[in-house]
C-alpha cells in the first residue's frame, strides 16, 4: 500500500524551488515548497512568535533544504529541527551547489541525513525517498547514528536483516558526501 510521502522543500531560488517540486512530484511525493527557513519553521509549528493553533501544522516525512539562504541558512534550520523534541526524528537533507568538505561534515554531524550537491537529479530524490521509506518499514536494530555512518561507508548489510538484499539502498553514483576524518 503506497503511503503518501510528504516532503517540505525549502529554497530561496524560484528556479530551484520549481525544479525540486517537480522532481518530488514525479517521484510520487506530496510537496510543500517554501522560500525561506523562517517560513519552514512556521509551517512546522516551530515559530515562537506565532501560537501553533494559527497554522495547520504539516506532517512531513522529509525536509529538504538549500544550505545558502539569506537570513537563516539551511544549517540553522537543521539545528532548530534537530533541537526540537517534536521534530527531531524527521530526516533533513541539505542541498548545496558548493561541495565543501568541512561544510558537509558539519551538516552530517548536526544530524543531516544527506548532503546533496546541486543540481539535484531525479535519481537522488528516488534514492532518498526509497531509503527513508525502507528505514521506516525496517527500523535499524543498531543505534541510529552508527547505522547512518555505516550506510554511508557502503558496507552491504548495515541496518538490514541478512535475508533481504540491500543493493537497492546503495546509491548508484555517490553524489552525497561522506564524513572525512579531519
Amino acid at each position: 500500500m503506497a503511503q503518501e510521502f510528504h516532503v517540505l522543500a525549502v529554497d530561496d531560488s524560484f528556479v530551484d524551488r520549481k525544479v525540486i517540486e517537480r522532481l518530488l512530484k514525479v517521484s510520487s511525493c506530496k510537496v510543500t515548497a517554501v522560500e525561506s527557513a523562517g517560513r519552514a519553521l512556521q509551517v512546522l509549528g516551530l515559530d515562537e512568535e506565532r501560537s501553533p493553533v494559527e497554522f495547520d501544522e504539516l506532517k512531513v516525512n522529509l525536509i529538504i533544504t538549500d544550505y545558502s539562504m539569506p537570513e537563516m541558512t539551511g544549517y540553522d534550520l537543521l539545528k532548530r529541527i534537530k533541537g526540537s523534541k517534536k521534530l527531531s526524528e524527521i530526516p533533513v537533507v541539505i542541498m548545496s551547489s558548493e561541495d565543501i568538505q568541512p561544510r558537509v561534515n558539519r551538516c552530517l554531524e548536526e544530524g543531516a541525513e544527506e548532503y546533496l550537491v546541486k543540481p539535484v537529479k531525479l535519481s537522488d530524490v528516488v534514492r532518498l525517498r526509497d531509503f527513508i521509506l525502507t528505514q521506516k518499514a525496517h527500523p535499524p536494530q543498531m543505534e541510529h547514528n552508527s547505522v547512518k555512518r555505516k550506510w554511508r561507508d557502503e558496507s552491504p548489510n548495515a541496518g538490514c536483516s541478512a535475508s533481504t538484499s540491500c543493493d537497492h539502498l546503495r546509491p548508484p553514483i555517490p553524489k552525497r558526501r561522506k564524513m572525512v576524518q579531519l
Partner: protein
Amino acid sequence: MEFVGQLQRQFVQFSHSLFDEGFLDDQFQQLQKLQDESNPDFVLEVVSLFFEDSEKLLNNLSIALQQQIVDFKQVDSYVHQFKGSSSSIGAQRVKNVCVHLRSFCEEQNLERCVMCFQQVKHEYYVVKNKLETLFRLERQIVEAGGTVPFIL
C-alpha cells in the same frame, strides 16, 4: 508532412549543437525528462523563470559594480545566485563564467570583475537566444501537426 519532417530535422540538429558546443549540459536533459503530458510546458516554465530571475540579477550586478565603493560580498552573493540558477537549468557556459567571476570577486579585482561580468552577460544573452529559438522550433513543429522529437 515534408515540412514537419524538415522542422523536426532542424530541431534535432539544433538541439545537438547546443549540447555539442557546450551551451547546455546534462541538467537540461534532466529537466526534459521531467516533462510529460501532465506537465507539457515544464521546461518552458522553468526556463522562463530563469530568464525573469536573470534579468533582475544582471541588473543588480550592474548596479553593484558601478558603486563608488564596490561591495564585493554583495556582488559575490548575486553571482552565486546566478551560478546556481544557470546550473539548475543546464546553462553550462553561463555557469562556468560565473565561477570565474566569483574568483575575481574573491580577489576584489574590480577591473577583472567588470570584464568578466561583460562575458557573463554575453553568455547569458547567447543562451537565451538559443533557447528561445529551440522553443520556437518546438512550437512550429506542434503547430504544423508534428510531434517534438526526443533528444537523448
